[in-house]
């Protein structure tokens, strides 16, 4: 079984999945902000990307330098097989857990 995911790790992996070829720190953060509507700290994105790469869930490669970045390259991220497996596991765990819990939440009232 793959290591369990923190919730922010989960969100980041999803964003990488959605962005496909275009996933790098800036686009990932914008994607998350667009989906959640809240502000995300850049530093948190960097440390989490680093940690996920350390755990083997993400792979990174360097792109081509561009002038708007002062001649610097982008670091693109992509899901590794382990990352994809973790996401799949997290999804099925959630799906399994929810049908049993949804009713309980309703009982407590809004």
């Amino acid at each position, binding site marked *: 079984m793959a290591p369990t995911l923190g919730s922010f790790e989960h969100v980041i992996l999803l964003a990488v999945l959605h962005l496909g070829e275009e996933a*790098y*720190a*800036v686009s990932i953060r914008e994607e998350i902000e667009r989906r959640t509507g809240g502000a995300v700290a*850049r530093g948190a994105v960097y440390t989490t990307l680093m940690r996920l790469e350390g755990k083997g869930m993400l792979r990174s490669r*360097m792109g081509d330098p561009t*002038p*708007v*970045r002062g001649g610097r390259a*982008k670091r693109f991220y992509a899901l590794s097989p382990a990352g994809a497996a973790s996401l799949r596991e997290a999804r099925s765990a959630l799906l399994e857990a929810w049908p049993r819990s949804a009713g309980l939440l309703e009982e407590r009232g809004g």
Partner: protein
Amino acid sequence: MRRPPALPAALLRRLLADPEYVESVLGDLEEEWHAVAYRSGLRSADAWYRRHALAVALRLALGPSRGAVEPRPHTFTMVRLMQAFLGDVRLALRSLRRAPGFTAAAVVALGLGAGAATAVFTLLDGVVLRPLPYADPDRLVRLYDSKPSDGLDRQPLSPVTFMDYRALGVFSDATAWWRPEIVLTDAVGEPVRASTVEVAENFFALLGVEPAVGRAFPLDETLHGSGQEAVISHALWQRRFGGERSVLGTTIRLNDGSYEVVGVMPPGFHFPGDTDVWQRLRWDLYDHSRNAHFMGALARLRADVSPAVANQALGALTARLGEAYPASNAAWSARAEPLADDIVGVFRPGLYALFGASGLLLLIACINVANLLLARGAARRGEMAVRAALGAGRARLAAQLLAESLVLGVLGTAVGFGVAVVAVRGFLAWSPVAIPRADAVAVDLGALGFAAALAAVVTVLFGLVPALAASRTNLQGILRQRSRSASTRDAGRSLLVVAEVALAVVLLAGAGLLVRSVSRLMAEETGVHAPTALTMDVQLAGDNYPTWATAGDFYHRLLTNLRANPQVTHAGASNFLPLEVGWPIPVGVADNAAPADGVAPRPQFHTVDGGWFEALGVPVLAGRTFDERDGADGRPVVVVNRALADRYWPGEEALGKRLRVVDRGIGPLGRREAVGDEHVVVGVVADVKNVDVRAPPEPAVYFSVRQFPFLQMHLVVAGPGDPAALVATVRAELRRLDPGLPLGRVQPLERVLGATADPPRLVMLLMGSFAVLALLLAAVGIYGILSYGVTQRRREIGIRMAVGARPGDVLRLVVGQGMSMALAGVLLGAAAAAAAGRLLSSLLYDVAPGDPATLAAVMAVVVAVALLACALPALRAALLRPMQSLGGE
């Protein structure tokens, strides 16, 4: 293209190990910076960038290091130590908060000391230590001619002689330029004066700096070409052409014609001086006179040649040239001076002296805080004893006290850093002196590192001894010391106060010596008496004034109109300001025997209008100055100064004597004085210093502006109203004669005359403020130890009074104790100052480094201040009531 601020990038690079990773993060940030800049402008983008780059840097530095997710080994020991340390710091903060007066005093003292040191370090670093922004700058040398027999030093070169120097073999190459002072006009807007030089084609290559946009001039063997090309500065490009690339290939009009802009230099490049436009040289350097000294020159030493060797070679060459061309080169010699010395040389000794002074001030501040800590330690003996009794070991106690010192040290240097930021900024804005490379001076990472190192050093300096002393406490000692009148610890504190006073004396003596030399420099007679006059530069555009007669006529009319204006009391013009060296040109003295050495005398040539001497307050000693008779068609006449009359016609009447042109003419504006032309002396004026304020005046010949005109003249104008009104009046008169003509730089004449005193004055002002602070701190030190002593000795004093001592006796006792410390410090300090004064000798003028009068004055001041510092505690002791003080026990 504009880039985001550089500092956060440097920080990130320093914090993180993986360079590729850092670059990708920086790329992200720069990309977003562009977006923010597009939305909200550059200013807020820069602020945004700083904030977010810093946040990211902190997060990444504190977060997992790249590649290592497992916790590192030994974490537990480290964590325990960290926790103990943080606990000590918390404890220290609490205990300092309970003693706000003590904490504030310590932090302010340290802040002032560390602030002064950091500020001076920043200046030293930015102005002197940082290498010049040119390729291999240590091998660049300025070339100067000098002729000691005429008092001429650091003179420009003749282009012909320059080519001889260049061929010498000790240089890998050499380049030259001159400054035609030009008005820039173009389609963009109002004409402006742009600081311009005409440079040999290898100028940029020699410095090793390439244009940021476009190209430099093509290289020819002869260093000149026919193309009318110009390279402009980055600042001018931004200011006047909006930073558009399309400036390349456009035409700008300089006053002698049209030039195509072919390149833009990188930001900050303005060599020499504040140049904004570099024109390509268009004439042959060989095709000129060896007598005309007007070229600036720079050479690059060959890798295997030292400046000393180059100077030897130049000496041998100039001796040979002197024999080959006696009429032009006899008695001239040349010198190669490292470029860094040339640009910042005068400031180097001053800044080093200030750095030393700020170090002394910091030392005094540390001593003061150590003293405070010792006093506090004495007061806290009970607390320490209780802690020891509860089982805290000596090391723990010392560690706790050191943590307290560390907190003070960090707070103090943080305050000091703030002080430095404000001080440097304020100083650069206020400084009366133009400081070279001032735009590169900024409180930056280097200064931050310096301040951090200072924090560590001062903590150890003032913290260690008190910490060890206090941790040695034991219960028995407390009981014993309660009844002792003075402890060995108090002796130690007295020694610290003596040291403090001594250091303050050293600083005050340094400041005193500078005050004396500056006041002597300022009092030096220049020959000029025009306290309210302003100088203004005017530069005619050559193509509007094609002949010398039109230029001369313009100035004649301008000055006649100005003098008729009720807003103007005096007006005159000259091509050289006072203290500037005129053109040294050989003349024949018609009514005198040939000079003994066969070399024609070479007085300075100045061109003035008739009102010049009156505007400067220079008396006419004989004859007259210029008037309506001396027009272009009139008889050629000159006015000479007294130095010339005395040297060439000693004991004779100078009026009516004749000076003859003996050299191939170097007349301006195409006017060639023919060899043999004679000028009759019609007036003799008093001397105006024309070399340096410290040197006697040299012989000078004054020509009328209508007979020997120049395009550029300095006006000297005085009026009854305020300076702004006067400038407006002159501007209006200029516009009436030539609507397109801008008025150049305006400055008070006094400022021009006082410029020599600027570097020592700058050092004097700063060192003076350091010295005053030092004296204050020393006084506080004396006051502190005495008033502490009086509190401790209330009982003893009470007993003395009870057995018959009168208030006067007590007063003498306390004052005697204070003054013995002060006098010991004053004597020690005076001895040290006499020795240290020599370090200032290059800044001193007409004052010996060990000047007894200065030392005596300083000693008197310190003794007086020490007496004041003694007075309060002594009075308090003398007014004690015996019963009260005994009852207090």
